[in-house]
């Protein structure tokens, strides 16, 4: 069972890696933000698989933290993007 789970971890990591370079090279910043999201889901799956395979205690806590914060970077991106758009509308913004 352990080697099966490790093999699956390897597979998921490879899938994430392939997807990652596809979106990082993508055309827009929205594409690139997807890279981060991809890592959220795929990384969580890989961590869970590896954690159960090796019987490492505490991996579930790591994954729990990751999942609570999964949306955080993307929210920051969207907010920054909105305020950036506003900056464009009025270049003479105050400090």
């Amino acid at each position, binding site marked *: 069972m352990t080697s099966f789970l490790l093999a699956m971890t390897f597979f998921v990591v490879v899938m994430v890696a392939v997807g990652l370079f596809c979106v990082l090279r993508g055309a827009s910043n929205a594409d690139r933000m*997807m890279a981060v999201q991809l890592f959220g889901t795929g990384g969580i*799956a890989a961590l869970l698989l590896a954690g159960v395979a090796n019987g490492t205690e505490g991996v579930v806590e790591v994954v729990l933290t990751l999942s609570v914060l999964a949306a955080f970077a*993307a929210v920051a991106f969207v907010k920054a993007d909105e305020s950036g758009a506003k900056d464009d509308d009025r270049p003479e913004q105050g400090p």
Partner: protein
Amino acid sequence: MRIAADIFTIVAILTGAFFFLAGTVGLLRFPDTLTRLHALTKADNLGLGLVVLGLLPQSSSVFGGLKMILVWLLVLLASATVSQLIARAARRGGPHP
């Protein structure tokens, strides 16, 4: 009983891995940002759900299993929100040139 649980694990995780594969193929093949977003946030979440389902019989405690299910629910919530937010940003014509 042990063997049945192991077979369940293997089947569920293999199916999950297939959805990860599908998600990646989608990222590689789909033509624009919105369709790629669709591939990413749908297929990978199903993949993660199946992986969690498969790992449940291997979990050492009930509480550990519950935490894994919570993880999946949180990722679903995050993905659903993020896909909307990113899609809106993409529709605005991409944040920055």
